[in-house]
Structures are given as structure tokens and as C-alpha cells.
């Protein structure tokens, strides 16, 4: 019985005899979707703004006493407002806006994290394929991943004898562990069904990697990458504090040495904001790439 035959049969069924009551149609409200969106936006934006105002007020009150070591928010604005208002000024090779400094640091992160992502996914894919390798490597990774970024720096400086590659290595070694561990877990979780499909199709290793493994493990891989990008942004500040340069991390160290506390506070806001954007960016890419993977 095919579909056409089925349709013909359906036509033979008696038509329903119940009276059809027309419902009054309401005029569509053109502004309704916009109003809805506006309400949703306000619902998301207003609470954090309110909390921010409350926190700033507490800070203002707490830090305005005599002999307080920290500047008040108002003082920060007076001292360092120009750092917020002009992120991209250039007055000299060392005197540049925080926007440029963030970009310099982001470039380092791009190298270090990019390397960690590629090496981490490949290593994780290989290790995840074999239960024996997983048993061998996993405990070591679990130990290494808890080593703080700064602890890697002396070893890195000794190995590379140059601050540039050392900083990148520190970012790399900090970010790689969650990528490896999550990718391996994702590869282990690939359903046997997909492996059977690959076997029947006789996919080779490379085809299997691109056509089955990456898409199937994408949600795992991207949650690893998301943790990794956060860690590498943590590591950049630590690394730059010691290796120098024009990055945002070194700026904090420099400001501390010349007692510009207000500048440090502004730099913290920049770092936090950038870290937040990086995290959301990787999360968003992950959602786009792994769309449809989870069924």
C-alpha cells in the first residue's frame, strides 16, 4: 500500500457534520512582539544593573572613611575615567589605551589557546578511542590540570629562555587539560550505533574523525574549550605580570609599582569584561556548531 492508495482511502471517510463556528479574529497588534522583546530585555538587564548600583554604593560608603587604603568608585572615575572613555589612545610606545593592551593580550591568548585547542582535541580524540590509553593517561592529566598557571612559568622560562614564547606556553599548558579531558570523554560517549554506521560504510580514520567523531563529541569538546578559554585568560594576566610587554596583565603590575590603584581597578573591569565576552563567544560557537547533535 503506498501513499496515494492511502489518500484515496482517506477520501472515502464521511465528512464531519458538526457545524463550524467562526471565531472572531482579533486585529494583530504590530507592536506586540517589540513590546514583548523590550520587556524581556529589561528583565535581563535591570536586575544586574540594580545589583551593580547597590554594590558600588556599598563600596563608596565603605571606602570613603579616613585612612581607607582603597579609592572609592567616584575617586576611580576622577583618577582614571579617561582609561574607560578612551580605550584606544596612543601617546607613546608604552603609553597606550587599555583597549590596545587587551588586544595585545588577546593575541597571545589566540596563539596559546588556539594551539591548546588543536593539540587538545587531537590528543583527546586519540586517547578517547582506547580504554587502555584512557586508564593510563587520565590520572596524570587530572594531576597536571590542577597545577596553577604561575607554577609553569619558571619551567617555561627555563625552557624557552624568552618571555614571549614562555607566556604563550603558559597559556597553552593551562588551557589544554580541560580540552583533552572533555574531548576524550566525548569520544568515549559516541554511541556504538554511529561506530557501526562508520564500520558498514568503511570510513577511514580521517573520515571517521571529521564526519562522526567531531560532530558527535561537539558538545563535550566545546564545554572543554569554554573552560579552556576561561583558564587561558586567567593565565595571561599572571604570565604578563612577570614577563612584561604591553599587555593588560603587565599594565596592572606597572600600575601597582607606581601606586595607581584606580588604574588597576579599571583594568580589572576590562579583564572581567573581556573574559566574559570570550566565554560567551566560545559558548555561542559551540551552540552553532553542535546544533542538532543532541537528539
Amino acid at each position: 500500500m503506498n501513499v496515494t492508495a492511502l489518500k484515496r482511502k482517506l477520501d472515502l471517510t464521511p465528512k464531519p457534520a458538526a457545524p463550524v463556528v467562526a471565531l472572531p479574529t482579533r486585529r494583530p497588534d504590530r507592536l506586540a512582539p517589540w513590546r514583548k522583546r523590550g520587556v524581556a530585555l529589561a528583565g535581563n538587564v535591570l536586575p544586574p544593573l540594580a545589583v551593580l548600583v547597590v554594590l558600588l554604593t556599598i563600596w563608596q560608603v565603605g571606602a570613603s572613611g579616613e585612612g581607607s587604603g582603597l579609592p572609592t568608585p567616584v575617586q576611580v572615575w576622577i583618577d582614571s575615567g579617561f582609561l574607560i572613555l578612551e580605550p584606544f589612545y596612543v601617546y607613546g610606545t608604552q603609553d597606550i589605551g587599555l583597549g590596545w593592551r587587551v588586544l595585545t593580550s588577546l593575541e597571545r591568548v589566540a596563539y596559546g589557546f588556539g594551539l591548546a585547542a588543536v593539540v587538545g582535541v587531537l590528543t583527546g580524540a586519540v586517547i578517547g578511542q582506547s580504554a587502555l590509553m584512557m586508564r593510563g593517561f587520565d590520572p596524570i592529566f587530572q594531576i597536571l590540570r590542577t597545577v596553577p598557571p604561575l607554577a609553569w612559568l619558571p619551567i617555561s622560562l627555563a625552557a624557552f629562555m624568552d618571555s614571549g614564547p614562555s607566556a604563550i606556553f603558559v597559556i597553552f599548558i593551562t588551557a589544554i587539560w580541560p580540552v583533552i579531558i572533555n574531548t576524550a570523554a566525548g569520544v568515549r560517549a559516541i554511541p556504538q550505533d554511529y561506530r557501526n554506521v562508520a564500520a558498514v560504510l568503511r570510513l577511514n580514520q580521517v573520515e571517521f574523525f571529521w564526519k562522526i567523531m567531531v560532530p558527535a563529541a561537539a558538545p563535550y569538546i566545546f564545554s572543554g574549550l569554554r573552560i579552556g578559554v576561561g583558564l587561558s585568560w586567567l593565565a595571561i594576566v599572571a604570565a604578563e605580570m612577570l614577563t612584561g610587554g604591553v599587555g593588560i596583565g603587565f599594565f596592572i603590575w606597572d600600575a601597582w609599582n607606581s601606586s595607581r590603584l584606580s588604574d588597576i581597578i579599571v583594568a580589572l573591569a576590562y579583564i572581567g569584561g573581556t573574559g566574559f565576552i570570550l566565554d560567551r563567544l566560545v559558548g555561542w560557537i559551540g551552540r552553532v556548531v553542535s546544533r542538532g547533535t543532541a537528539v
Partner: protein
Amino acid sequence: MKYLSIEHLSKTFGSGAKAAHVLSDITLTIGKGEFVSIIGHSGCGKSTLLNLIAGLTDVTRGAITLDGREVNAPGPDRAVVFQNHSLLPWLSVYDNIKLGVSKVFGSTKTRAERHDWIMQNLDLVQMSHAADKRPAEISGGMRQRVGIARALAMEPKVLLLDEPFGALDALTRAHLQDAVMEIHARLGNTMIMITHDVDEAVLLADRIVMMTNGPAATIGEVLSVDLPRPRDRIRLASQPDYVRARESVLRFLYERHRFVEAAE
């Protein structure tokens, strides 16, 4: 007329004291274009038998030959329709079929020919309207249709169906059984179908292979179903030959080889 032959096949999982003898001494010959159903209680190793033919599991003893060549690895000449469709959820229906078609016909067909071939197979299962949909966007029955199209598109020598309709409701199952019968009539494929549904086995098969209960399950009986094709489920229901065939399968399953759960 030997096309697929299974000779003294045994399968043991594990070794030593923990060894599980799943299948023992299975011998079966299937001719080209034949439709064979394998029926048995759950846990009797019928899926294992299918996996052995597919090459997804290694043979312990004995041999399987297809068209004169020994089977020892999986390949597109023995395409499988899996029980839970196993479509890749991140690919569209079209791309799911394309994955196999590009692999099998990548060097022998042009891009346009491959496209036509994919659409032709989708037409065969009446799913060309959903070519751009993802598996999550279509119903269970439709997914299984696509699974059949994917397997057929590899132009297999044997189509292996592993309880393909087990998870579907009765009405959808009936539609798909009709679709499979129609495809079998049109293309004359050799098909092996695992099932635990007596009606399905009798309706579709030329021969029904009945398996004894495990451990060390083997073929208990082979029943030829000499009902004329095309078969119509409504007319068959009252035909004495159909009723007799159905009865003998039921007798085998519920009188001589009753499923004893405690045996495991």
C-alpha cells in the same frame, strides 16, 4: 542457488570460565533475491547472528561467504538497517544518505548521478519531501524509512534488517512492512530480517528461520512460506496456508522452545 552461505558458525564471547557460548553450529544457505526472516525469543542471539553476517562481530568458528567471498569485515555490500535507525542527527536526511553514497559511488558516479541516485532512493521510501529535514524533525516511522533508503542506496548484495520496526507502533509498522515488500518486489534484493513478530515474519518472508533459546542457540527449524506474492495482509488473514504457517511458528516458539527467563 547459493548466494550467502553460513557454515557451522559458532560465536563465543570471552574465554575461559567466563566464556558465553551464544551461537553454536549454525548452517544456513540463502539464495539470491530471497527474503529470510530470523525469529526467536529475545536473548537467543539473533542480533548476534546478524552482526556476524554484517561483519560487525568476529566469527569464532565456521565461515560466512557472500557471492563467493568470505565475510570477515563490515562493508557496504551488507548494508544494515539498524533497530534504532542510527541516523546521524547532525546531518539532514539527504546528507545521511549522501554519506554512504559518496563513499560507495564516489569514483564510479558523477556528482549529478549521485544526486539523482540519492533522490531516487528517497522516492523509493516516499521520503523525498523531507530531504532537507533533520532526523529529529521527522517521526520514528519516517526515520526508519530513511534508514532503509540509506541502506538501499549503497546497493548492497544483502540487506540486513535488525528488528527494524520493533520500536514502532502497529499502524506505522504495517505501512513499513508494506513498503519493504514493495521494494523487495521491485528490486529483488536479498534480504535478511531479524524479528520477534510472528505475523511480520510470515507476511514478509520466503523462509522463516526459527532459533532455539540460548545459550548456544542454533537453528531449530526452517519453514518455507509458499504464499503467492504480492501478499495482502487483509486477504492473507483468512487464508489457510497463512494460518497454518503462523500456527507452526507459534507452536515452535511457545510449545517446543518456550522462553524461560530463569535460564540466563
